[in-house]
């Protein structure tokens, strides 16, 4: 174990330890509160009686459905506490208001207007608690012509632009198969919440933070959005190649047990990579002289790659690499690239990531106790190491209403009789 082992106990409280977050979010907004919980905030997840509908999302532990078995729930609600409140009931709303009166942040991701219809809109919350930061994570934002439109991952990948740029020319554009863009929006919600919280702590002034997942998806396009304005060109999907202005270069190769990524380009960035790779191939199996003697660093890639002759040349180099890689594994190629100092990455699966030696050396994966299971479950660990305020980890996601008594009675001052009566009426 190294000095930065994530499994070492946290010596101090987290960076956001003084803050109370009330998390009303639906599944698309869960990650915001999870990140704030990692930073030490006390995050109280409010669920409807019977549990958050997102608990029905697969995959499930042992593939058996159940409200305490959703792995999406486990991942994105780790470190939170849970109380049940019925926001469709006046008493439930009244309790939510009591909770919010003492909170620093509320995170929500309902369709715009949902909370206002229940007397919990931004204006009411601001009147109740002027220092409250109200963070809303929705597909398109709180207002505008598409506010309230349905925006699951496939729609966000389309309307945010990633899909147009991804896939093979002979098939429709394609999304990343694992949903991404609600999580981008929710993570952006964490940034914006932290900024608003910093302001509220200094001034006592809360505000409404309105995050658009569509815009968060657009930001993932790197440099693409300005191409039509600067170069008069619309970038499009190119399969295993990547559009680079008018030129394209190949980024992906099959190998014996999967795929690896290497840039087949030239110039200051790509030249040294191709040079080192061809030197290796040359040492092992030989490379035609007219390829090995090319000055890859001095070569003007953009010019070459847009000519017929240049394309034929790169196709020839590609074929040499294809042949060489086909007889080697991801691990062999990665190890040799590391030893020779050129850039190559295996296209890892989650199984590869789980046994990655760098992650192991840093103690990345952490064990989380699940009392209902015989063994702790190994989770992906901290997304950053903060030297003085390490991220929290280790607490599993809460069971439905697990902290009703602690939060509503011990902290909010509800009498035990009141709690029983609310419970009997199904409000909690």
């Amino acid at each position: 174990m190294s000095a930065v082992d994530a499994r070492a106990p946290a010596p101090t409280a987290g960076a956001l330890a003084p803050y109370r977050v009330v998390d009303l979010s639906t599944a698309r907004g869960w990650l915001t509160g999870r990140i704030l919980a990692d930073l030490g905030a006390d995050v109280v997840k409010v669920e409807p009686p019977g549990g958050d509908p997102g608990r029905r999302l697969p995959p499930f532990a042992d593939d058996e459905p159940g409200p305490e078995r959703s792995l999406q729930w486990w991942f994105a609600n780790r470190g939170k506490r849970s109380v049940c409140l019925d926001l469709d009931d006046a008493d439930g709303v009244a309790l939510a208001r009591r909770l919010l009166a003492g909170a620093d942040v509320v995170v929500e991701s309902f369709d715009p207007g949902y909370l206002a219809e229940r007397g919990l809109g931004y204006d009411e919350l601001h009147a109740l608690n002027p220092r409250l930061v109200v963070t809303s994570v929705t597909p398109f934002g709180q207002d505008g012509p598409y506010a309230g439109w349905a925006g699951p991952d496939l729609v966000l990948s389309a309307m945010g632009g990633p899909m147009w740029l991804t896939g093979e020319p002979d098939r429709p554009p394609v999304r990343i198969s694992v949903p991404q863009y609600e999580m981008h929006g929710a993570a952006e919600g964490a940034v914006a919440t932290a900024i608003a919280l910093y302001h509220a702590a200094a001034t006592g002034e809360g505000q409404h933070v309105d995050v658009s997942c569509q815009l968060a998806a657009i930001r993932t396009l790197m440099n693409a959005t300005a191409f039509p304005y600067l170069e008069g060109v619309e970038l499009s999907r190119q399969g295993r190649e990547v559009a680079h202005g008018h030129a394209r270069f190949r980024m992906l190769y099959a190998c014996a047990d999967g795929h690896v990524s290497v840039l087949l380009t030239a110039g200051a960035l790509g030249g040294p990579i191709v040079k080192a790779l061809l030197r290796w191939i040359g040492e092992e199996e030989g490379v035609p002289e007219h390829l090995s003697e090319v000055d890859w660093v001095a070569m003007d890639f953009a010019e070459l790659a847009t000519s017929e002759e240049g394309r034929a040349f790169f196709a020839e180099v590609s074929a040499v690499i294809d042949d060489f890689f086909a007889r080697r594994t991801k691990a062999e190629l990665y190890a040799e690239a590391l030893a020779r100092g050129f850039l190559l990455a295996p296209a890892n699966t989650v199984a590869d990531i789980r046994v990655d030696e760098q992650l192991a050396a840093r103690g990345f994966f952490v064990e989380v106790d699940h009392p209902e299971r015989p063994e702790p479950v190994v989770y992906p660990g901290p997304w950053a190491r903060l030297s003085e305020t390490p991220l929290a980890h280790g607490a599993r996601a809460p069971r439905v209403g697990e902290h009703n008594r602690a939060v509503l009675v011990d902290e909010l001052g509800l009498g035990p009789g009141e709690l029983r009566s609310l419970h009997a009426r199904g409000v909690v």
Partner: protein
Amino acid sequence: MTGTQVFDGLKVWDMSWVGVGPLTGRYLADYGATVVRLDSSQRPDVLRLTPPFRDGVPGINNSHFYADYNASKLGIGLDLDNALGREVAWRLVEWCDVLLESFTPKTMAAWGMSYAELRERNPTMVMLSTCMQGQTGPRRDYRGFGNLMAALSGFYEVCGYPDRDPVPVYGAYTDFVCQRFAATAVVAALDHRRRTGQGQHIDLSQYEAAIQLLGPQLLDYEVNGRVATRQGNRSELACPHGVYPTLPVRGHEGWIAIACETDEHWRALRRAMGDPPWARDPGLATFLGRKAAEDEVDAHVAAWTAGGDQLELLRTLQPAVPAGAVHDQTGLHEDAQVRQRGYFVTLEHTEMGPVPYDGLQARLSRTPGRLTKAAPCVGEDSYAVLSDLLGMDEDEIADLIAAEAVEITGG
């Protein structure tokens, strides 16, 4: 300065380059911090050499890629191989509240600028170090960028069609995961610092941050032994769930995404299509029934969309049916919602002139951030940084110029 920005008065020395570091600095700059970005024409940020370029002409001051990621910042052209240049870097270390860097650990160590050394001169600063695989461990000095990291972090494997090789996700994908975690960590550390006076060092491995977005899949592997892979546009939860052709858009192919996540969505799709006979098949009323006939359902839906105008279909389907225009870049700029949000912001760049820049993804009602300027040309702000921020006089600055320690243009 308006006096209403969250980070008014906050001083940031941005020694980072390429993606995650500069994008983290841009959050701070857009919300009011004074951010000074390290710059050089001799060792330029690779983004200065990367398109898009104004009129497609490569040039160190002609890359919009760099100008976007360093908008709202000042720049200083500095030679860190020059002793006087390094001394200016150290002055900025003492000046700053936040230091950002994204080199491999051995690079900072070679300059004598490890966190331990920097802290001696500025014990309360918040420092972000973000390299590919973290500050420790056998691969701490792995060089790379977000495209390769997207492969390493598992995103390529889950992108593409099941019967073919994966396809690369566009761009340095992991950068745009990591910028969010990095910025959150820095702002939280600043909050802690204001309460306690304590600075700290943040080690953000881009590998460890990126794979958070495969969290449920990592657990699925751990608990169920399932290895996530690519499945085109299909979903285990929704049907139909795909991308279908429309009439051409602006002279090229048009596509619309449709995701029926519930039977109610399916019924709304039927109504939108005019309830054709094939769709009335009672077997298709349930998710499992549609999933069993997915190829046929997709073919029928595609036949219906193929004769339609993309935006008309979109307005017909939403909000009852989750649907999205598959936007190209011009489509994004013309999208009614994106325009209403004012996402793209036109800024005047000294050499490139007025061009749209990516703006802010969140709207803060009382302290909205804003882009104040495009990134400078190399050396354009150097004099202002040395004079106004570090308080150097004319003689000191002249000595730096004579020693070729700084690059100053204009002024």
